[in-house]
């Protein structure tokens, strides 16, 4: 007798999963690429994992000046041109609190800092390291320690030193998230293994192949947070992952007083969004504009948890990650373990090149990922996959007028009105959409645009509305200042 899988009540959609392309393929290690491009800021981005996803107060754009500990710059580079680095060497760190250390993901020679195409933000400064052809054999070895001997401070330090950020989406630095302020009452840790994006199977394979590390990682996180209960939420289209995790939980034992539950969740997009998975598992709803800790919950991605285990138990920094390379436009699909900074072109090459009627390349999932125009784009810490989509898989229809069917209202998990925002933007009144309350709540999951029968680009309208609101606000402030100075 199995219980009905938990789910969130409001909105959501059921896109074709397309996970069968890769969900049985074991994780495969890709050899060293010829070079890597490491963005100095690896933790940028939009949601699925962080509670206040967009408009994260990012540190200001780091100076591109190339210097050791350049004064005044938030980002400190620790290496210089022509320096030889080894895989795992720390090459940079953030000066502010909200930042993550950066490590060389390959052994080789530092080439310099260049502006490289970023899938989300356009060109951004990145550290280029050319791989040493013989370096692959001299990989660092990590020594296993018993994390139970470490203090809370030591654990947090090791997580920070490893440059762990949330791998599920926004890339929020893990140590910052875990360093909860005194007085915040927590009771539940949720590990997000929903992986609700179609096509993507990297978390799925990690759960199947590293279930022990994930459960250990969960216990590390519980220890750091000072709580005893963890629930791992997994969509029930991954029965092998649920089974593996359950086995790992029972093998891990309960003597330590830490309980880990595996919770099957209904397959419904966006099950893996923080708000939705918290509601599915605990029934609690996060008040708009507040953090998930305000309702006693911390959400962490399963793969991030696995990386936390690596960092704490082995001192291994975040230098590589599994990405799902899939879609019908690539010769061979794979769950590929690649070095951070590997360019898509080399990945496509390794898998036998492009095939068929390739129409769109997407970094990330099909619902929230970013389309790129060429393959000279590197993998970042938050890249879950790359989709090579053919014209059969992509809907490239022109959009029509809104017919007021209301499908988007039913699909929106946050109870917003995407139709109206779209109409306002089309009418040139994007700045007047603030009262629709989407600024805090909309995490651009794309459910509205997915269901729209007129194929309206509703997420694009919403982004335009944000932009216009921002511009109007700036204009108002500028006018105010001008008025004061006169």
């Amino acid at each position: 007798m199995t219980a009905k899988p938990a789910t969130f009540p409001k909105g959501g959609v059921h896109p074709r999963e397309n996970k069968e392309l890769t969900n049985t393929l074991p994780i495969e290690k890709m050899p060293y690429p010829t070079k890597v491009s490491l963005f100095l800021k690896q933790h940028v981005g939009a949601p699925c994992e962080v509670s206040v996803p967009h408009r994260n107060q990012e540190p200001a754009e780091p100076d591109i000046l190339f210097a050791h500990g350049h004064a005044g710059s938030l980002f400190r580079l620790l290496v210089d041109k022509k320096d030889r680095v080894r895989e795992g060497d720390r090459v940079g760190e953030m000066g502010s609190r909200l930042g993550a250390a950066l490590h060389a993901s390959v052994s080789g020679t530092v080439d310099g800092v260049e502006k490289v195409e970023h899938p989300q933000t356009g060109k951004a400064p990145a550290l280029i390291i050319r791989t040493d052809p013989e370096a692959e054999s001299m990989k660092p070895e990590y020594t296993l320690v018993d994390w139970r001997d470490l203090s809370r401070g030591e654990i947090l330090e090791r997580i920070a030193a490893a440059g762990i950020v949330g791998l599920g989406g926004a890339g929020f630095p893990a140590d910052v998230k875990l360093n909860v302020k005194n007085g915040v009452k927590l009771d539940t840790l949720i590990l997000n293994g929903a992986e609700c994006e179609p096509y993507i199977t990297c978390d799925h394979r990690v759960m199947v192949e590293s279930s022990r590390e994930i459960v250990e990682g969960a216990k590390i996180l519980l220890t750091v947070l000072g709580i005893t209960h963890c629930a791992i939420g997994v969509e029930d289209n991954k029965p092998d992952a649920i089974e593996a995790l359950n086995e790992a939980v029972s093998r891990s034992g309960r003597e330590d007083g830490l309980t880990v539950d595996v919770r099957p969740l209904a397959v419904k997009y966006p099950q893996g969004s923080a708000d939705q998975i918290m509601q599915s598992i605990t029934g609690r709803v996060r008040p708009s504009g507040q953090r998930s800790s305000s309702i006693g919950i911390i959400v962490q991605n399963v793969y991030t948890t696995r990386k936390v285990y690596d960092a704490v138990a082995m001192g291994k920094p975040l230098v590589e990650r599994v990405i799902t390379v899939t879609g019908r436009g690539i010769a061979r699909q794979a769950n590929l373990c690649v070095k951070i900074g590997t360019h898509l072109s080399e990945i496509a090459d390794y898998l036998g090149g492009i095939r068929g009627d390739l129409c769109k390349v997407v970094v990330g999932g099909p619902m929230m990922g970013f389309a790129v125009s060429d393959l000279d784009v590197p993998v970042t810490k938050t890249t879950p996959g790359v989709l090579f989509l053919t014209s059969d898989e992509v809907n490239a229809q022109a959009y029509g007028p809104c017919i007021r069917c209301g499908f988007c209202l039913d699909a929106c998990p946050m109870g917003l009105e995407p139709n109206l925002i779209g109409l306002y933007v089309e009418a040139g009144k994007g700045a007047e959409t603030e009262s629709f309350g989407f600024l805090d709540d909309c995490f651009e999951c794309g459910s509205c645009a997915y269901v729209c029968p007129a194929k309206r680009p509703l997420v694009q309208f919403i982004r335009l509305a944000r932009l216009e609101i921002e511009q109007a606000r700036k204009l108002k402030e500028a006018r105010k200042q001008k008025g004061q100075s006169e």
Partner: protein
Amino acid sequence: MMSKHRHFAGEKPCQELAGHRMLVSVSPHVRDDTTVARIMWTVVGCLMPPLVLSVFIFGLRTLIITAVSVAACTATEALSEKLLGRPVTIRDGSAVITGLLLAYVIPPGVPLWMPIPGAVMAIFVTKVLMGGLGFNIFNPALIGRAFLVATYPVAMTTAWLEPIRDWGVLRLMDPGVDAVSSATPLYVLKHYGMAALLEQFGSRVSVYTDFFTGVMPGCIGETSALLLLIGGLFLIYKRLINWHIPASVIFTTGVLTWIFGGERLFTGDPILAVLSGGVILGAFFMATDYVTSPNVRSGQIFFGIGVGALTVLIRLKGGYPEGVCYAILLMNPLTPAIDQWFRPKRFSQGAVQ
């Protein structure tokens, strides 16, 4: 381009990529298969059974009138959009629906050209001039009908045909030969009372069965509650419409007729009220028009109650025996206001502060 992909081992992948025109757009990159055209053509399909039945009941001329109406609506849309320099949108099927619905709400005995002025009013004035699909305030087919009632009142209120009960449709190849002018049940009920109606149909049970199957005098497509229900329920099953508007229209019409429709209070006949006239057609296919009805379910119920109440008011106190058409037209312009009053429930509204 070559230098950008200098690290490719061979030239093959590079050329292949260059050969593909890459599409870059904002997420999501996958879309549901449902399109506006698919929805519209599904509705067209759901409207077919009553048309077939009407041929058997009123003769082939109903088919001709419907064809004229659909052709006139489609031609008006194509022509007016061409003249205004807009893209021609007849393939989306919405003009076909308007044409069908317009034909369904006019009497079968009218001259065959009658739908044409209605179609021009419905498509050109009510839809295209308002900005096209999605921007019209009123239901185009109903404006078309209202226009015809105003301009050709005699034909539109008296050209009823007595139903053929022996399925002898083939004898009616020559339209109008056997056609007998008649009065609609609602007209009889309004002006002569229930006794007269029972006399016409025999017993109360045969009134119900004839009304349910559609063997009664009435407009081309609104007589068969059964076939309209099948089409309407299919649309709900396919989740193209919600049950909220049809249910609240039918429920309100029934309850208010029961209360106020008899000699004394609480003696009206709710079943008769719902099965006669255009209630079922209006509730499932006209009041649910996306463009002119509210989006949120609570607002849809409010809208449906309004339609039902106005229908009963017009039927009992107004000058016309039937009121569905005007009831919907009166509620249509309230839709933007209803959408303001009934907003979707926000996610964090359930939050415990």
